[in-house]
């Protein structure tokens, strides 16, 4: 029988995959892909908990996460286009000139 913990574990695994992507990737577009994976993992967890409690709150949260993801993509892609026009690359190592 598939229970809640199955879904939560798969969500955790997906989140970790996204985290590996964020840590490993130097290309900004790939980095954004990895954050999308993490957002999706959070969505699965919300839907699963929502199903467990028979409560719609989790599904509501997941809707808003999707909306937030869409708007972040809009801003992020705008940024990518400007960066690409200016620098001709999307590689983080080439972009970072300031040393914080």
């Amino acid at each position: 029988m598939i229970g809640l913990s199955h879904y939560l574990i798969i969500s955790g695994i997906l989140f970790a995959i996204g985290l590996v992507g964020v840590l490993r990737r130097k290309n900004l577009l790939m980095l954004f892909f990895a954050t999308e994976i993490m957002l999706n993992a959070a969505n699965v967890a919300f839907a699963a908990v929502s199903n467990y409690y028979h409560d719609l709150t989790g599904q509501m949260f997941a809707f808003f996460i999707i909306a937030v993801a869409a708007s972040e993509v809009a801003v992020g892609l705008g940024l990518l286009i400007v960066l690409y026009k200016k620098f001709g690359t999307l590689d983080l190592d080439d972009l970072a000139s300031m040393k914080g």
Partner: protein
Amino acid sequence: MYEQIAFYLFSALTVGLFMVTVLSKNILYSMTSLAAGMVLISGFFFLLGADFLGVVQLIVYVGAVMALYAFAMMFFDATRDIKEKNTSSALVFLLGGMAALLLVVVFAAPIMGENIQASYPVIEGVGNAESVGMVLFTKYLVPFEVAAVMLLVAMIAGIILAGKKMDHSLTTVDDPINVQEETK
């Protein structure tokens, strides 16, 4: 039975596809596998009885967000393999593995609270889309409207960054007063 088969199938496929996304050298492969993985994520939502969420996932995520990425890719050279300097791959995988282990332990542990009263319970005999609508447009009306403002802000930000005077090349235009000397 069917739920088990579906769950394991979806899990194996999403994990595999997202692995491709994270590890592939080619942006095109990466993006395609990401889109496919998101389609399968919606399968989880259908299994969990969140039909409407699954549909939204398909329409918004796969339909809109991935299409946006596909459009953006046209600005960049997408067919070429990207070269990345992965200095310490082993460390990254170690960290990622530890994070995975930690999260799985957290999620596998009995984290659910006891005696929880659902704030907005699922109504028996009413379709998912209908009950979602009833909660979303009464109790969550304010966040809903605010989310609209958020999308507006995102649109403005996107237009400011990428949209205005797109025919001008950014490298040739010089601002008369504020060209900061790049001292470093």
